[in-house]
């Protein structure tokens, strides 16, 4: 049982993926039922495991590939944090996507790769060894490409190309790092950080840098972020998934793994690589916000905001202290909830009102109150307005910064807050206060589109208001740090 469960969870998205590929385009009902059903099943399994793991249980499943190549699935607290996020948002995004696409073309292909993408994310979350992490990391890279290119027009193909253009060299760097490391230490399991004694410090730093480049591409660390805004050519559900759950989160999660499970916080501090990484993350936070200010396309602005927001997680990991760690981990979930809300709403504006640019938002609040309210909640959460989700993360990151003897982090957080306000509040202002254009149209009579947004918006409010309770992401992050990463 303990071995079966992780595999089962992986299968809940892998099997539908494979089946979906072979479904004819017409069989909407079957396809939707399959995807929704498996999403629900997966969620149920995860809830069951949450309870068990909270009680201290650990699930493991190992598949030896070749000597030194062990595919290890391990369900521990941190894995569950990520996997439960992805499972929840997967369900919602599936509902949303079904409504979004209606009966457009190539749906079997889309949902196939969609599920594959989630399978990869799941595997990534459950990976218990470096090599299995890499394995799913690559699986994610590839399964995302068709999603980005889904529209198959010039823009999306270019976007897809630039995605690979960034991702594959990143993977090469990652593999390079892994092999360099493992050729000395042997296979690395996340359960026990390897003994780096055999490697001289400078090589260690080089390996660390390679690791960060590898995962940094996905985490969209400046200057490796170019693909992310370009990927906006993808359909809204994809953007939502990309930005909230799958790709960027994989990168951020990777940073956490590298810092805490591969090198170990202590080593990172001793090597003196934590502060540079934190600085890079800070640079990304600010740069992303500044670029976001300059966009007048809603999705592009959101994209750059992702660049900035995801680096909060990296920052938390880089500071390598308990508080910062909590902040980073909890932002993994919080950013997901808020950002997916924003993308859901952006998609609704596009789909129901044909609005892509910011100046089109004028006065939409009156006509699309639910969507606009969700959008506002998400945006204010991003700004870090209490008691929304973003505030909680920011609070812990700030504490962590001071604790780690890096009070300049406060300045970064402050600047980022102001910048976030600067590029989000004008949107809300347009939504609620400016008069709509004469030819304005659009409604939100599409419950299946709006409902997911409402749920996630409520979620990003709820996780903030109930942060202190044990069942909240914050509570879980605390648990992780207490059990796994207590200094």
């Amino acid at each position, binding site marked *: 049982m303990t071995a079966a469960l992780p595999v089962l969870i992986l299968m809940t998205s892998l099997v539908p993926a494979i089946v979906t590929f072979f479904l004819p385009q017409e069989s909407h009902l079957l396809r939707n039922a399959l995807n929704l059903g498996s999403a629900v099943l997966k969620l149920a399994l995860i809830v069951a495991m949450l309870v068990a793991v909270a009680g201290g249980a650990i699930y493991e499943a190992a598949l030896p590939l070749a000597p030194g190549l062990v595919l290890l699935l391990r369900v521990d607290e941190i894995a569950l944090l990520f996997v439960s996020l992805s499972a929840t948002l997967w369900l919602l995004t599936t509902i949303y996507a079904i409504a979004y696409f209606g009966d457009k073309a190539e749906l079997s292909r889309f949902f196939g790769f969609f599920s594959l993408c989630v399978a990869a994310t799941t595997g990534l979350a459950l990976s218990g060894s470096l090599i299995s992490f890499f394995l799913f990391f690559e699986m994610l890279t590839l399964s995302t490409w068709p999603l980005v290119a889904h529209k198959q027009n010039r823009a999306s193909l270019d976007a897809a190309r630039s995605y690979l253009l960034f991702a594959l060299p990143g993977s090469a760097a990652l593999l390079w790092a892994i092999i360099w490391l493992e050729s000395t230490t042997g296979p690395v399991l996340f359960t026990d950080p390897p003994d780096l004694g055999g490697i001289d410090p400078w090589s260690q730093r080089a390996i660390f840098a390679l690791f960060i480049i590898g995962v940094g591409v996905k985490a969209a660390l400046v200057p490796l972020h170019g693909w992310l805004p370009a990927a906006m050519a993808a359909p809204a559900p994809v953007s939502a998934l990309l930005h909230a759950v799958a790709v960027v989160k994989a990168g951020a999660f990777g940073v956490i793994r590298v810092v805490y499970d591969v090198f170990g916080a202590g080593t990172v501090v001793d090597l003196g690589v934590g502060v540079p990484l934190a600085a890079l993350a800070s640079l990304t936070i600010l740069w992303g916000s500044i670029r976001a200010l*300059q966009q007048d396309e809603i999705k592009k602005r959101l994209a750059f905001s992702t660049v900035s927001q995801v680096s909060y997680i990296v920052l938390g990991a880089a500071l390598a202290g308990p508080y910062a760690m909590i902040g980073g981990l909890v932002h993994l979930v919080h950013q997901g909830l808020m950002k997916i809300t924003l993308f859901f709403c952006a998609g609704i504006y596009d789909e129901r009102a044909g609005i892509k640019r910011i100046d089109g938002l004028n006065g939409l609040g009156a006509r699309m109150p639910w969507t606009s309210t969700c959008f506002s909640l998400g945006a204010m959460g991003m700004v*870090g307005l209490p008691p929304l989700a973003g505030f909680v993360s920011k609070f812990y990151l700030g504490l962590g910064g001071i604790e780690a003897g890096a009070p300049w982090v406060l300045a970064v*957080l402050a600047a980022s807050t102001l910048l976030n306000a600067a590029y989000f509040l*004008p949107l809300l202002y347009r939504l609620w206060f400016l008069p709509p254009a004469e030819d304005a149209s659009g409604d939100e009579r599409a419950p299946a589109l709006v409902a997911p947004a409402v749920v996630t918006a409520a979620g990003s409010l709820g996780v903030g208001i109930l*942060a202190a309770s044990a069942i909240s992401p914050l509570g879980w992050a605390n648990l992780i740090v207490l059990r796994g990463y207590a200094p």
Partner: protein
Amino acid sequence: MSALLTGSVWPFAVLVWPLLLGLAPVVPAWRVQAPWVLPLAPLPALVFALFGAPGATELPHLILGVELEAVPGGALLLGMTAAVWTAAGWHAARTLERSWRAGILVGFWCLTLAGNLGVFLAADVVTFYVAFAAVSLAAWFLVVHDRTESALAAGRVYITLAVAGETLLLAGLLIGAQAADSLQIAAVRESLGQAPLGGLAVALLVAGFGIKAGLVPLHVWLPLAHPVAPVPGSAVLSGAIVKAGLIGLLLFLPAGTDWGAVLMGLGLLGAFAAALWGLTQRNPKAVLAYSTVSQMGLMLLLVGAGVGAGQAAAFYALHHGMAKGALFLLVGVAVAASTPRERRATLVLAGAVALSVAGLPLTGGALVKAAAKDGLAPAATFAVTLSGATTTLILAWFLHRLAVERKPTPGQNWAALAAGAALLALAAMLAPWVLWSGATDLPAGYPLRASVMFDAAWPVLAGLALAALVIRRPAPELPPGDLLTVSRPRARLHAPRRPVVVLPTALGRKFVRLLIRARTPEMALRRWSAAGGLLVAGVLLLAILLVDF
């Protein structure tokens, strides 16, 4: 799992009740008539302030663990706030035009109220911050409610400063919380004294709270926001909301910090400069706004001086809040007045309140001033006394403007509005008498002493004399927002869009050209003469490497 709530449920109810009422407009059927909930929203707070039992309340699962407790100074302000909001709510309920916008206002009105009450009840940093954010950001909707160009412009200034303030606060509080390794406000305040970054933290806090409390030079939003906000909005802004900044300083400023002097200096500056600058305004609400800045200056001076651990400042704020609230409401009342009799009555009432603010003996104002001076350095004492003159002057100017400004809007029930304002004014007059013994250690008869009465009286008379001159030869009119001329919306931010990087195409083209060129040697290699030669060369090379001679 620990209990959801420990201790008295009242403080929590005080905060939740307005939030619940604030949801009323969500129901379309109720949306239009929603303003009627406004006067009800603060009632639990009022009751709690009057009969509330001391003692802490904890909700460990909320946000980061919510703790509520009414500190002594906080209790005074809580009551005052509740009173002001009740009166203003009553006024709003009767005057707001019924539209879907009213619904939005009601929602955020209640949110602001909850936050405003929260800052006086919070016992832990996070709850305080949450409440503070609520009061300062949600109040933006009160400012921009009319959606006029000037309102929106003022709103931009307001929100910018508010967000900046939030950010500064968060930074400061984070330093404090980390140093104290606790979220308890008391503990944080302690640690701010000796923490390595304590100085920085206090600076951040002073700036953050100063913005809200109208500390010169961070006060610029006040004179912009008040004239454009609807009357009840201005009332709560000036009466209650600015006090959030005050309580913040009272709660977090560590004892014996060097910033006390700074506060005193800036407070003094504000007290006089703002009052005089107010004379350049014509809009009565703008004049009142400047008077608020000057009054807040006095209170900040008291905070800086740390008199009676802030009790004095709180006591002073108690009176000023209600009086100023009443004055703003009376502006609305005056507008509603349709007959000369009503107008006259309004002016009389306003005059009475104004004199109380100026500190005419036997008024509530005189009492709080007397209590405030106790324990102040002589110079400061004289300054406070002298400020009575400027206060009288500016309020006289206000009454003058109120009298000459005539744009009656019929259809309002003057009596009902006047009653609300009058009750609040009465509370302002009497509350200091009632609370005297509790708020200060001075003897009960102290305010009746001749010397005290004289100190209170002469500035008022001086002020009236000056006022006579000023009203005859008014100061030139200047736009509100002294230090700031409201700028156009920031066009800079929407700079020309640069394309998102896909890949350096020039480089790509070069590479392709290089590839094409690479095909030439490939073709050359195909010639057997070349390839065969290479083959022979390969044999020789291998042979050289393999044969050991």
